[in-house]
């Protein structure tokens, strides 16, 4: 390149421009399935505040991809994961989603954890006709043609939990949550449900994400003397909330506390001493006894270490990859529209038991399960609902 002069430069650059202008879309059109591989995007936060929760979801998804590749891939294509970091920042999520769809031409993306990040990528997926598998329990009220929701929506968690609590634990409720879309909407739904059941709300409080001072709230709870505390606090704040509850003498053996965002995974940070006796409502527990789950837990521990635990979101992430694989095989194509069409009514033997996609609304039929945390951080299941039909837009 030593003899760059103007004439050469113009010649080569115009040739390059011409070359790139014409065949560019043709070169890239089928890159998602080139040479016996198919690209799948993994889009979670590996850095930042939410990385705490999302990193292990990536682990579970990578495990599923590894298993599928070992068993011969999808229709003979090896899955090639493309991992992107959303960095707990919603615009970054949108940008990386665009990159995965436009540059990598991935066949599907497993990704997002917070509702805020999902809302940020949703227009990108709809515009570029991508396919997102969203593995986190969320507040419902959404159904995008380009998103498959593989975890619980509100009717499968909070409403089921409220019904059970009202029947078994008491009539007066105190609700507390972090201050953003998921806890706000969830508590709103819980309040409607409570009103319909005839119970009474004796207090509610919202705290900024990451808040660590709950003693005033705990004094308020003490003054209100509720039968049940419904906890929608999310993330690191839960550690503070539970430690301070325990320190002031409110513990699971004396008071019903049900958390909607605490799974086995979070307990390792909160400390099993502090959660023992409190309750949780999820679709999956590591302690479920069925061969699929035992296989999953064993494989997860073998790959990532014996002290790791599985939990609801991990399992949904793991299922997502398999659900996509089955749908693609059923459709005999990686085409997004065909995969979505093939997903309707698709059933799989997941670690949480049989789940299947709803005929039309992109959500899964699921069990709601309620359990009590044991001193070792595992869950003792006390209630299992039959398969609940997903209803992302419930009549309240």
């Amino acid at each position: 390149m030593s003899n760059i002069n103007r004439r050469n430069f113009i010649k080569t650059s115009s040739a390059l421009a011409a070359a790139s202008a014409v065949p560019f879309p043709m070169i890239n059109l089928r890159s998602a399935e080139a040479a016996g591989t198919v690209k799948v995007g993994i889009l979670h936060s590996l850095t930042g505040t939410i990385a705490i929760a999302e990193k292990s979801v990536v682990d579970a998804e990578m495990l599923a991809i590894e298993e599928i590749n070992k068993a011969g891939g999808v229709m003979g294509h090896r899955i090639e994961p493309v991992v992107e970091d959303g960095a707990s920042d919603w615009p970054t999520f949108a940008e990386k989603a665009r990159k995965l769809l436009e540059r990598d031409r991935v066949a599907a993306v497993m990704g997002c954890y917070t509702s805020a990040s999902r809302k940020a990528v949703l227009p990108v997926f709809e515009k570029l006709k991508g396919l997102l598998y969203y593995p986190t329990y969320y507040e419902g009220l959404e159904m995008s043609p380009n998103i498959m929701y593989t975890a619980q929506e509100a009717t499968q968690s909070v409403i089921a939990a409220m019904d059970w609590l009202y029947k078994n634990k008491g009539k007066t409720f105190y609700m507390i949550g972090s201050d953003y879309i998921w806890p706000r909407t969830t508590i709103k739904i819980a309040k409607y449900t409570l009103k319909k059941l005839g119970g009474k709300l004796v207090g509610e409080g919202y705290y900024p994400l990451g808040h660590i001072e709950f003693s005033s709230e705990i004094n308020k709870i003490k003054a209100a003397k509720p039968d049940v505390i419904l906890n929608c606090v999310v993330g690191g704040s839960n550690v503070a909330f539970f430690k301070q509850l325990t320190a002031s003498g409110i513990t699971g053996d004396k008071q019903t506390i049900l958390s909607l965002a605490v799974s086995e995974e979070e307990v390792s940070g909160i400390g099993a001493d502090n959660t023992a006796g409190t309750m949780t409502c999820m679709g999956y527990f590591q302690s479920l006894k069925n061969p699929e789950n035992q296989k999953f837990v064993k494989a997860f521990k073998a790959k990532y270490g014996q002290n790791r635990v599985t939990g609801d979101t991990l399992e949904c992430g793991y299922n997502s990859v398999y659900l996509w694989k089955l749908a693609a095989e059923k459709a005999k194509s990686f085409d997004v529209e065909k995969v979505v069409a093939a997903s309707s009514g698709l059933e799989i033997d997941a670690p949480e038991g049989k789940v299947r996609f709803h005929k039309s609304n992109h959500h899964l039929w699921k069990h709601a399960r309620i359990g009590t945390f044991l001193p070792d951080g595992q869950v003792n299941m006390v209630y299992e609902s039959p398969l609940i039909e997903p209803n992302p837009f419930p009549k309240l």
Partner: protein
Amino acid sequence: MTFDVLAMQAFTGLSIFTILMLMALGLAIVFGLMGVINMAHGELMAMGAYCSYGAARFFENFAPSMMDYYVFVGILLAFVVTSAFGFLLERGLIRFLYKRPLDTLLATWGLSLVLQQVYRQFISSKEVEVPTVSWLQGAWQPTDGIALPLSRIFIVVLAIVTAAAVYWLLFRTRWGLRIRAVTQNRAMAGAAGINTARVDAYTFALGCGLAGIAGSSFTMLASTGPTTGQHYIVDTFIVVVFGGVESLLGTISSAFIIGQMQSWFEFELSGSMARASILLLVIVVLFFRPNGLFATKVRR
């Protein structure tokens, strides 16, 4: 409101006050003396928390019978490690930036991101569990209805002891005299034979060490993870700025005022509203007293 709740609320106010004071002391000293805005203060507190975690793991594995006393070892270790880190930081980075306050802001902010990622990569991306020693679990119950958490009582005592020690150091020792001299007039202090560079390094180390103590003791109340520091840093800054950056007394009174506001606002309002109201009040006060509540009057 019954008397029991009133009493517990009063204690909550006291507890938040001491927590804020403990958080802000280190930052106030560094800020006041050197004008360095240490954005990595929160991550140094997280470092202190991880020291506690390390001590807990060590005792659990090698001296389970002494487990009840690990908390003191944890606090001491946190002070030693963070102040040593602070010393190296001052010598290796901060001292080159004294004349460029905005650059120290950026450099320490960058450092905070680096530290967060170091914790995430080498310790755990998840929160770690730091057990509370058995004698600090539960609550002291003077009457049936009143329960005061022992861990908070411990932090109240620790904060008062720490503040007293800092006071003694600054106002009753020759070393403190030098620090105060440098704070008030760097050039004259240097002319009078004080090695200002050395004073800077030691003071910065002390400030960082105090952050370590705070972080280590807060493991009893809150989470220990890569982003733990971020939860503390905003409150810490509010306390220091509100109190006036060059006054230790200002920092303490500001911690008291904000602590009381926080406990009562949170009791009367929802948590997010309480926080917004406090910030609004702070803005109003700073509007009328831009240098904070207790700014030292100097001719500029």
